[in-house]
């Protein structure tokens, strides 16, 4: 279902760990994939999400975890995701449109993210996943703004994943609650 065997994706052990947490343990954890590939993890996903994530980041050194706007995020240690972005004019905008605008904005302003692609729409375009209005603080870090795109819906998560083409894709998902 996840298309893990899909040749278009660069799935590693950390990606599998996060997707297992979401699907099997209903954990709403957003995820930004690092450039470093991790082929093996001793840590196991579990219902104790905090413990599972502690285990994950202790073994996968390229990663850290944070909580932003009430959302858990596992992301690379690379500082680019902490870059401050100011003058963000996104208030009360449908989620998909807001994400599209924001990613277009940071792609031009943050050199390290020039390969980041806007989120796709898969399925019903009128789904709340795409249409719920969200607002971003005018000034904040990229990871903070990504979390704000999720709004108050705790079932919504985002993923930034590197495609086999080399580009990075930002997309939304919904974790069954």
């Amino acid at each position, binding site marked *: 279902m996840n298309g893990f065997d899909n040749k278009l994706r660069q799935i590693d052990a950390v990606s599998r760990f996060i997707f297992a947490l979401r699907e099997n343990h209903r954990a709403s954890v957003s995820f930004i994939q690092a450039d470093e590939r991790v082929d093996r993890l001793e840590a196991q996903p579990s219902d104790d999400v905090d413990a599972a994530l502690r285990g994950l980041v202790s073994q996968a050194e390229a990663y850290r975890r944070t909580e932003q706007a009430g959302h858990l995020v596992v992301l690379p240690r690379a500082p680019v995701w902490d870059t401050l972005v100011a003058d963000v004019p996104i208030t009360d905008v449908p989620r998909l449109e807001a994400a599209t605008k924001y990613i277009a904005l940071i792609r031009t302003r943050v050199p390290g993210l020039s390969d980041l692609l806007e989120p796709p729409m898969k399925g*019903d375009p009128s789904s709340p996943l795409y249409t719920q209005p969200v607002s971003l603080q005018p000034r904040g870090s990229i990871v903070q703004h990504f979390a704000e795109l999720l709004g108050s819906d705790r079932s919504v998560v985002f993923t930034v994943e590197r495609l086999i*083409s080399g580009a990075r894709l930002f997309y939304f998902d919904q974790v069954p609650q």
Partner: protein
Amino acid sequence: MKQQTIANRKSATVHSSADTGLFKRKCACGNHSSGHMECAECARRSKSAQFNRSSLASRRPTLSEMPPLAAGLIESRCGFDFNRIRLHGEQGTIQLQGHTPSGNASASPRNSERATARLHPANAELDVGLKVVRSDTAARLAALSSDGQEDEDVIKTAQVGDAGAGKAPAAPSCSYAMTYANVKTVGCSAGNCGAKIKYDVTGVTATGSGCPKLKGLQVTESVTSDSGCLPGGVTTGGGCQIVDDAGKVKAGCTDTYGLCSSADSYPAAGCTEIYTQKLSVGGVLAETRTITFKITKSKAGCSGTVTRT
């Protein structure tokens, strides 16, 4: 993961009493579900099991980890959401061991089925008794078989269980067909490549002697994707209500499914992504459809087509 689930299911055999149709959670050595007396051997095994339980707990699948069909089967039998309950089986028994809050839990009867659950707080085990009157076997088997080869074991188990219960297989009870109108394909918004398909769900026909009254039933759907072009899940529309017993669906029941993204996000050689759509009537699988998106990229640009079969 899938293999592990199948292996677990194979090792878990459901025992049923031929004359009562009552499924019993067979205690390690006694009939735990009908009384609380425990023989010495049982006590010995219980101690051993408690010792092993903690080490095994982390790898027992919950219902939410099981294939949707298997989890749905259990829920449909019980009329109760056992989502937080872990299921495991060994040595010819099937056991439900749970994380229910406390005290007793009982599931509401649905059709001719009865489910009860009793929690033993001391060791956090849950006894579950299911009484099933098999009036709807054919429909269940049809639902099972629609999910493919993986479910053959479940189907065989169900058939054997019926024979063991000493009852003749039920005649096919009900099958559903959906009717649609105004099917059309539309493009994605500016700057995006892909396609959308839009159609109205107008009605449901039910065929068979065991069909329920249609009025008031919900038409629902679940959709999965093979992520053949892009990662991520598929969002689905809400359900629609059937407004009369002839199967007319409430006006305005329109579905739209799309795959839209920037041209750069698709592979250079193009791609095909397949959504599998399962439509249900009153919670019973009515039909399975396939929505296929083909994305073509060339020097001239990117385009998409969609078909639904």
